[in-house]
């Protein structure tokens, strides 16, 4: 059971309220595909991912990034049971999508970079970053939990 301080709960909600899941999710996934190009292996049906420009312009990438980030809403509203919130999704990623769970960590890194760039130093303070990254690491852990 993850323990959250009141400050951490507030920090996570504060960050989430300012996020535009559609726009920021798209940016984060675009960034993953460019910074960690081997992740393209999971998106062969998305069409043209051959250049950075193609990735950035790819509607399926943006839509998928948006979908993934919007999913975090469930976790934000279920901080005390993120593990079970994503157990079905974890099975899907393991059994159907066959995604190496290390990739969840890479996406979490890129989400943090996008959030930092968007919010700036006065909002995304070290304490806020700590709570946000703790939140993402719990999500990452939940998504990897049903792998066997």
């Amino acid at each position: 059971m993850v323990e959250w301080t009141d400050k951490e709960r507030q920090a996570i909600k504060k960050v989430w309220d300012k996020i535009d899941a559609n726009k920021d999710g798209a940016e984060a996934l675009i960034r993953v595909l460019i910074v960690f190009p081997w992740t393209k292996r999971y998106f062969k049906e998305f069409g043209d991912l051959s250049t950075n420009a193609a990735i950035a312009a790819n509607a399926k990438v943006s839509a998928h990034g948006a979908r993934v980030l919007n999913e975090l809403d469930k976790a934000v509203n279920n901080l005390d049971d993120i593990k079970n919130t994503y157990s079905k999704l974890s099975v899907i990623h393991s059994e159907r999508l066959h995604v190496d769970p290390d990739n969840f960590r890479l996406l979490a890194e890129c989400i943090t970079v996008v959030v930092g760039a968007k919010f700036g130093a006065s909002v995304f303070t070290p304490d806020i970053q700590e709570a946000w990254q703790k939140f993402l690491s719990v999500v990452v852990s939940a998504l990897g939990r049903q792998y066997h």
Partner: protein
Amino acid sequence: MTSLTPRDKDTIKAFMAKASVYAEEIGKDALCRMIAVYPQTKTYFSHWKDVSPTSGHVKKHGITIMNAVADAVSKLDDLKGGLLSLSELHAFTLRVDPANFKILSHNILVVMAILFPEEFTPEVHVSMDKFLAAVALSLAEKYR
């Protein structure tokens, strides 16, 4: 992993030309965030009276590190050779687990994104990530 392409080197030099003016600020903030977000890294600084993220020691040390990173840009064509003595320091004296280089690199990248939201494009991000990974690899060269 992969070595730096000519394109990477151009990107790194161009971005660091802008960023190195803020090296001290980047270093202070990155180390502060590293200690706040990854508290296990405090174990390397038990000799400091104050290991809180905002302590004077942390600020000063962040500056030292980031100045060295900025300096490494001038050694891009031979990081191993250029960072030899720093590698020996980390291998024989400091003995920092190399996993922590990745942690610090992440926080340097986050601070760069915060300070340069427009310039820190995905292209700059990947070249800078590769650069910091190459620096880390060179620092670990003498470990074993």
